[in-house]
Structures are given as structure tokens and as C-alpha cells.
């Protein structure tokens, strides 16, 4: 009896601890988008059958985006419910999204949803997804993406994934999670630091730098197979991998000549590295432009570090950044029209966005040690690491700077976040 009680108490404690751990993962949103679209998201019919509350995930995604205000429907509505358009118009909704959850005998779930335009008085979208429980959150994110796209005209990033590195105690982990930070999976554990993770264009691999062999070596992690293999282990340091848009090549920084320079290698590691840049000191942090024709990189050839651009076959490099005396970590937007980077101004390391056509610069963050920016695949948001009380948290900011979210967990030191690509 006593033994049973202790076991029960232990289980209860574990359950509480896991709830607590979830609670510590705090997402805060600040700022208000200029134009918010009022959308009514219904509790999906029978969604209590699902271990994930589908409508709650959709609401959280949409409200976090800064583009929507959520109107509660107060009662569950399935996709087959009759829509009373005048009533929803009165309640201020531009759109209404009801749906349902059905549990199948084989353990899968059918998620159905429809999107109605209240002003037009008609259905404008809808689909169903049949998924195993581990893909329920993904199904909800896909519905949020569809609503976002139909109402704002741009694809949503909610069903994409992010990767980042955590340091928990003495263990470093390369983590893959949903774009909202949930559904975390540890892809690689190591007793040594991992830096510079970056997704392959198809989202199945991550290139990164690991110190597991006492020096920086570039590895490619095969997420699906759970394997990692060396792709750049030359004498000296090997770092800063960046995928070519077709996924066949990696630009890397190597110290073969004694100073750090940029080379291109095959993504599978075979063949000799082809030297791309030649400077007397540091060239590093290469990034391919979306068209694959040029590479943006950091160089101190003019004194302090600045961003430069060079053709993919080499040649002379052009300087891109001119404001401030310390600009590093260039990341080019998916449309190739803007650049984000880390700039040090007045001793503060912050994220800046540069419009490449107009040379207009916008400061997007206000921390003291913000780093590792990356664009969401839609190009509308930037994920970066931000220091809070000597612990790094993850932050997301919209490219206009109006909406900002922070992902914080007291027990975890986050670093090196990177946003993954769109996937089917």
C-alpha cells in the first residue's frame, strides 16, 4: 500500500515537473502589428480526443505573428456547421475557421478545417489531414499557415522548423523544434560545443561545426537517419558552413593558408576544397545568395569586420556594409533584397537589417549581445539569440521591427538558432 502510494506520488511529481518544465518555456510577445486582421478561430469539434488542442495551437500561431486579433467563438464548431455570416460580421470577424478532430481505430487522427470569408459570405479554403499523434501539432501549424496565407497573401512559417544549440549542464545539444519552439527533438548530444548549424535546402540535413575532436570540424547531420559525418576536416580550423541553394555544395571557412579564408566543397565532403577568397587576414561566415550566384561574407580586409559580396566563382569582392565599424554574420533574405547582420555600436551587439536597393538600415533588436540572426523562409521574421542575464534566449522579430517574441527557459542556455526551410 505504502509502496504503491510512493510510486504514485513519484509519478505525480514527474508529471508536475514536466508541466513545470513546459511552463518555464515562456513565450512573450510585445509590439502590435499595424494592421491586425480579426479572425474567429473556433474550438474544433471533438478536439478533446486529441492530445494536442488543435485550435489553441492555431490561435497561438496567428496571434504571435502580429497580423491577427483572435475572436473566440465560445462554442465548438465543426467544418460542417452552418455559418451565420451576418452574426459574425456583427462580431467584427473578417474570417472564421471551424474544424473537427476524429480519432481513427489505428491511432491516427483526421483533422478537418474550413476557412470562411465573412464579407464575401463564402468558403475560401479548407482541407483535411490524417496524421499520427506525433504530427498533430504539425497539422495545426499547417492550418495556421493556410489561414495566414489566405488572409495576408504571403505564406506562413508556422509549419517550418528551427534548430538551435542548448547547453544544459555540461551537455551541448543540437535541437530541432517547431517554429514555435515546441515539439523539441534532440538531434545530437555532445560534451563539446556545437556552433553554426544551418539547414540543407530540403530540410533533411543540418551542417554544423563540432569541437568533439579538440578542433572545429564541419559535419553534416542526417536528421532522418540519425547519422553525422565529417565534410571538412582539413589541417587547422574548419567552420562556418553554408549550403548552396541546390544543396550540392557547402561554402566553408578554412585556415589552410594560416589565415581564415572561404572555400567551396562538395556537400558530401568529397574532393578538394576550391578557394574562393584571397585576403591577407580574415574572410569568414559565407552565405550563398538565393540565386546561388554570389556569396556574402565577413572580412576584416578594410580594418574592422564588414560584409562583402563576391561572385560564386571568385573575383573581386564588393563591400556591402558601411555603417559602424563592426558588422558580422551576414544572412541574405529569401528574396535576396535585404541583409541582416550583427553590428556592434557603442559596445552593444545588435541585429540590423539593410535594404540592399536603398541602403536603408534598420535596427531590429535592443539587447547587448544579440547574435546568429536567420530569416524565416517567408522572409517576414528573423530569429536570433539574445542574452538575458548571461543566459541566451531565443527571440523572433518581424522584419519591420514591430513584433517581437522571446523564448526563454531558465534551465537552458540557448545559442546559434537557425530557421529551417519550407517543407512539404
Amino acid at each position, binding site marked *: 500500500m505504502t509502496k504503491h502510494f510512493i510510486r504514485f506520488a513519484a509519478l505525480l511529481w514527474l508529471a508536475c515537473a514536466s508541466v513545470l518544465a513546459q511552463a518555464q518555456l515562456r513565450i512573450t510577445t510585445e509590439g502590435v502589428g499595424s494592421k491586425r486582421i480579426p479572425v474567429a478561430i473556433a474550438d474544433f469539434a471533438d478536439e478533446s480526443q486529441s492530445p494536442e488542442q488543435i485550435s489553441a495551437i492555431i490561435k497561438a500561431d496567428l496571434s504571435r505573428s502580429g497580423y491577427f486579433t483572435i475572436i473566440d467563438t465560445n462554442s465548438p464548431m465543426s467544418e460542417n456547421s452552418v455559418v451565420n455570416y451576418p452574426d459574425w460580421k456583427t462580431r467584427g470577424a473578417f474570417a472564421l475557421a471551424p474544424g473537427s478532430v476524429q480519432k481513427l481505430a489505428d491511432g491516427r487522427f483526421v483533422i478537418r478545417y474550413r476557412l470562411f470569408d465573412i464579407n464575401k459570405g463564402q468558403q475560401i479554403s479548407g482541407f483535411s489531414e490524417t496524421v499520427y499523434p506525433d504530427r498533430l501539432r504539425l497539422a495545426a501549424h499547417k492550418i495556421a499557415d493556410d489561414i495566414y496565407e489566405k488572409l495576408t497573401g504571403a505564406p506562413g512559417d508556422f509549419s517550418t522548423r528551427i534548430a538551435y544549440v542548448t547547453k544544459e549542464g555540461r551537455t551541448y545539444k543540437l535541437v530541432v523544434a517547431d517554429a514555435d519552439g515546441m515539439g523539441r527533438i534532440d538531434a545530437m548530444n555532445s560534451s563539446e560545443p556545437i*556552433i553554426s548549424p544551418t539547414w540543407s535546402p530540403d530540410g533533411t540535413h543540418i551542417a554544423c561545426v563540432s569541437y568533439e575532436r*579538440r578542433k*572545429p570540424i564541419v559535419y553534416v547531420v542526417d536528421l532522418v537517419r540519425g547519422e553525422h559525418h565529417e565534410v571538412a576536416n582539413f589541417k587547422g580550423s574548419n567552420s562556418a558552413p553554408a549550403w548552396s541553394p541546390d544543396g550540392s555544395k557547402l561554402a566553408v*571557412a578554412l*585556415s589552410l593558408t*594560416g589565415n*581564415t579564408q572561404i572555400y567551396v566543397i562538395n556537400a558530401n565532403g568529397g574532393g578538394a576544397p576550391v578557394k574562393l577568397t584571397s585576403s591577407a587576414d580574415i574572410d569568414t561566415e559565407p552565405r550563398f545568395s538565393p540565386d546561388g550566384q554570389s556569396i556574402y561574407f*565577413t572580412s576584416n580586409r578594410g580594418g574592422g569586420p564588414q560584409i562583402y559580396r563576391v561572385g560564386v566563382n571568385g573575383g573581386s569582392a564588393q563591400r556591402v556594409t558601411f555603417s559602424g565599424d563592426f558588422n558580422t*554574420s551576414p544572412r541574405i533574405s529569401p528574396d535576396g533584397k535585404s541583409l541582416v547582420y550583427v553590428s556592434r555600436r557603442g559596445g552593444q551587439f545588435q541585429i540590423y537589417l539593410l535594404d540592399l536597393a536603398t541602403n536603408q538600415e534598420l535596427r531590429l533588436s535592443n539587447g547587448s549581445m544579440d547574435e546568429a540572426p536567420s530569416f524565416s523562409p517567408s522572409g517576414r521574421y528573423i530569429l536570433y539569440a539574445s542574452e538575458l542575464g548571461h543566459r541566451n534566449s531565443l527571440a523572433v522579430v518581424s522584419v519591420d521591427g514591430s513584433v517581437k517574441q522571446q523564448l526563454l527557459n531558465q534551465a537552458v542556455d540557448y*545559442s546559434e538558432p537557425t530557421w529551417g526551410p519550407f517543407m512539404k
Partner: protein
Amino acid sequence: MRQYSAIALAVSSAMLFAACSSTKLDDKPKIDDKPVQTAPVQQGDARTVTPINTTPDVSAPADASRSVYFDFDSYVVKDEYAPVIQTNSKFLSVKKGQKVLIQGNTDERGTAEYNLALGQKRAEAVRKSLAAMGVPDSQMEAVSLGKDKPKAQGHDESAWAQNRRADLVY
């Protein structure tokens, strides 16, 4: 070892004395400088084995002599580290098969990859100092751990000063 040599010397001398005395009483025992060579050895024949000692009795420099510290934003090996360079280059020139990994480090300020490149400059500065003392490149590898493996965990100048460092790792 020295004691054994002394005993061996005494024993072999006594044996030599005894051998000599049994043949010619009037001859004085001849005790030369190399009593251990009394057992005759065939010189230079095909079965000769001349031992080679590939591990000379030199130990790696102590931990205190394996780190070079740098000033803020500096990649120059200061004069005060000349003894560190000398001690390690001497060790490496005696132990030809020994390799050394030179790991450069930076303080926590700045971005990860740029600091990795700056740490590389510190490792290279130490590598060049050793090369100037005659250590061949084949024995050395200069790498960087950037800001990711801080020795001191603090967030002030005293911690940063400890982390602007290159270590010689054997």
C-alpha cells in the same frame, strides 16, 4: 640504477680479479675503465643489434608553460612568453615524433564565427613563434575554439583576460 651499476662494477671487477689471479699470480689485476666490456663482443657482424632509444627521457612542458595570454584585440605573442615558446620548441625538437595542437581562444564578446577566426590568429601567432625556433610545420597544428571553450566563466575583464589565450596541447 646507479646502485646497480656500482654493484655490477664490483662483481665484475672481482670476477676479473679472480680469473687473472688463477692464471698468473705475479700479474697485477688489470682493472680498466670499462669493466662491463670484459665479455667479448663480436663487432660489426650481421647479427649485431644496436639498440635505439626513440623516447629520450624528456617530459612535456608543465601546464604552466603551455599557455600564452594576449592583450585585448591583440594577436601578438608578448616577450614575456619567450620562455614558453623556448620550452615548447626545445621539447618538440627533441621529440621529433611529437605533435602539438595549438588552440586559440577569445573572450566572449563578439560573434561565434568571427571569434573563431580571431582565435585562429592567436594560434597562428604561437605557431609562427615556434616555427621561428625551428619546429617543423609537420609537428604543429594551429586551430581555434573561438569563444566557445572559456577557461574562466566570468563576464568581467579578469575572466576575459584569461580567455584571450592560446594553449599548447600534447
